[in-house]
């Protein structure tokens, strides 16, 4: 149903109209074009009042949206603050956290929190913040332990967010703090009640914004001529470093898929579905022409290949043992592995929880068949 706006019918709001904030209506850099014709000075007051009414206050029913239910708020309101607001029931000790860490975190962050590749370093760096190359870690830099809890819970493990229970998050937080010598006792139970006992070494290391700390016109006009002592010299050249990526154009930028020549019984539609499923794997595994080993080995040619056979990848003992026993990856064996990696192969480094849907497993295996 359409309603035309009749000003005379607009109910007067019970509360006074919002005053026009300073600056509002003066345009933002460029003048706002107005289609209003200039009214007589007598009418202008009323006209402005009406325009203000129309422009700044919806003056419409306050009924958009619907109330959030307590269960909905509980499902999404997961944030934790330094004062402990948001911390749930439960708890965990560093000793509880160690096996969880080794299972779910160490493949990227390293067994000692030293960081694999360019993944974040979690430990060390004490006293380096004034160094030429400071090492900013949870121990050396982060001001609040609540941030560790909040971040592990909301975003970790990378690619499997919000899969950890509250007790596991407490245990992991405790273990990461223990690795940083912030908790000394491996049986210290971190809970909502004990959280306040944690003191982060760099809590006092943060200051407010001090800008302007560079030139403003209040300090004078910038120089316009003869501003340097004689001719300017080049002191550093980017070309010497040669770290700029190649920028030659290619016809299909970023496309790395190599399609195998008419593989028998290849289902392109299924493979296309598998491409989507593979997004769950893509955090750790690469395929295609430019694929490299990441947290997991590159997967080109994995179908039909011996397990644990990618060069230069550091496999788990479990994978090496399976390889020695002659495991070959085919649709059947890979399907079993992908269904529940750590059940099929106890001790594997792959922290992925698995693909419970059989169709997803078939699709991703079909997708992988394309890469030689």
């Amino acid at each position, binding site marked *: 149903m359409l309603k035309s706006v009749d000003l005379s019918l607009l109910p007067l709001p019970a509360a006074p109209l919002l005053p026009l904030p300073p600056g509002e209506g003066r345009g933002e850099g460029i003048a706002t074009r107005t289609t209003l014709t200039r009214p007589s000075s007598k009418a202008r007051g009323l006209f402005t009042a009406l325009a203000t009414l129309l422009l700044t206050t919806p003056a419409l029913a306050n009924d*958009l949206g619907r109330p959030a239910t307590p269960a909905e708020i509980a499902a999404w*309101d997961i944030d934790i603050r330094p004062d402990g607001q948001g911390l749930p029931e439960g708890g965990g000790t560093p000793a509880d956290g160690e096996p969880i860490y080794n299972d779910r975190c160490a493949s990227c962050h390293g067994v000692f929190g030293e960081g694999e590749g360019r993944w974040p370093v979690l430990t060390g760096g004490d006293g380096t913040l004034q160094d030429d190359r400071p090492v900013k870690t949870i121990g050396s830099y982060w001001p609040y332990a609540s941030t560790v809890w909040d971040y592990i819970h909301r975003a970790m493990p990378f690619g499997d967010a919000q899969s950890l229970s509250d007790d596991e998050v407490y245990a992991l937080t405790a273990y990461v703090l223990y690795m940083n010598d912030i908790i000394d006792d491996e049986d210290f139970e971190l809970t909502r009640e004990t959280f306040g006992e944690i003191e982060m070494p760099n809590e006092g290391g943060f200051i407010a*914004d001090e800008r302007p*700390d560079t*030139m403003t016109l209040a300090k004078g006009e910038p120089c316009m001529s003869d501003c340097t002592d004689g001719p300017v010299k080049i002191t550093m050249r980017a070309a010497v470093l040669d770290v700029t990526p190649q920028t030659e154009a290619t016809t299909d930028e970023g496309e790395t898929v190599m399609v195998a020549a008419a593989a028998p019984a290849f289902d392109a539609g299924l493979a296309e579905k598998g491409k989507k499923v593979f997004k769950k794997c893509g955090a750790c595994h690469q395929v295609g022409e430019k694929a490299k080993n990441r947290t997991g080995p590159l997967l080109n040619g994995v179908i039909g290949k011996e397990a644990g056979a990618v060069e230069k990848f550091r496999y788990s003992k479990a994978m090496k043992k399976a390889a020695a026993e002659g495991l070959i990856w085919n649709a059947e064996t890979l399907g079993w592995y992908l269904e529940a990696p750590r059940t099929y192969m106890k001790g594997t480094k792959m922290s992925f929880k698995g693909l419970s849907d059989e169709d997803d497993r078939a699709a991703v295996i079909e997708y992988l068949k394309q890469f030689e």
Partner: protein
Amino acid sequence: MTDPLSKSGLSRRSLLTTAVAGSAALTVPARANDPAITELQPWMQSLGDGVDARPYGTPSPYEADAVRRDVPWLTADPISSVNFTPLHKLEGIITPNGLCFERHHGGVAEVDPAKHRLMINGLVDKPLVFTMEDLKRFPRENHVYFLECAANSGMEWRGAQLNGCQFTHGMVHCVVYTGVKLKHILEEAGVKTNAKWIMPEGADASAMTRSIPIEKALDDCMVAFAMNGEALRPEQGYPLRIVVPGWEGNMWVKWLRRIEVGDEPWHHREETSKYTDLLASGKARRFTWEMDVKSVITSPSPQAPITHGKGRTVLSGLAWSGRGTIDRVDVSLDGGSNWTTARVDGPSHTKALHRFYHEFDWDGEPLLLQSRAIDSEGWVQPTKNALRDVRGTESIYHNNSIQTWYVQKDGEVENVEVG
């Protein structure tokens, strides 16, 4: 499919060479006739594609070079990573949607808008849930704003490193947003008097959060569902993102699903471990939200060398400030000894990109090009050394210093530092 590049059998490089030779011929008394005119070109004779060949239009294949690019060594993986806007290929002040740089912390979430919700909770009279349809029933506004990653130019703190304004300055884009002022949505829920902060949160696998003071939230923040006239792109937060004009791009949470209102900041990862500016003293500044006055010459630049030889030359660039409009841009051709005020052209929106030009006759000798912007609040873009004097080299964020491009006799351009 017609692909002029592959059909002609010419490589891009040979096309460029032909173009250079062709334009050079114009400066010489012309004897040979131009085959571009005297010979019949394929497009002059045969018919092109019909209207439905590209239901969603794409650029000419000759513009295949105008793409976002990443710097693989910067990050551990391509999912929590960044790529860069090809500033050297752009004109005017608006960035096309497909070229706006991307920065994700958990990849590009593919959100079904029918299942997307925005929740407002915390210190409000009534916690509310909105569907996308609900949000489109609020009064809409359109605003042009730049979005700059706080780490833009962050690789250049220690010195000239990357050869191209795409890489040194490409973590910025500027589009017109359509959406709803956040204050209308907050007013619907009723903000309690002790509310001091809000915390937007994303629906993606990183569940991005930042603390924003309530004054900013009620001032010019928007909840946007469209950019440049169409729905947000997935990589820019489809179907909903918060717009925080002039402030660090990281705060513009994408796939916005919730805003909590509180009385204290949350000190989450992206405002403690990241997006804090470590000084030489070992102390770090936090809550450094505004993006300072900044400019860069986009042409000539390393990816846009001078190919026409000496003579009339157009210098073009971009300037912006998170504190207002750009009042003035000065350019230097000699590394900062002498400056001339450039011509700012086109619309001047607050907290938006501004385009500037300087036309000059190039004598074919080497140049050291610089630009220096001054904003409407009187902040002056500093030199690299002036900035290092007060910040050191480990700040990562908020590097707004003056860029130098070295133009060599052959027209090639390099990123350099001068002393």
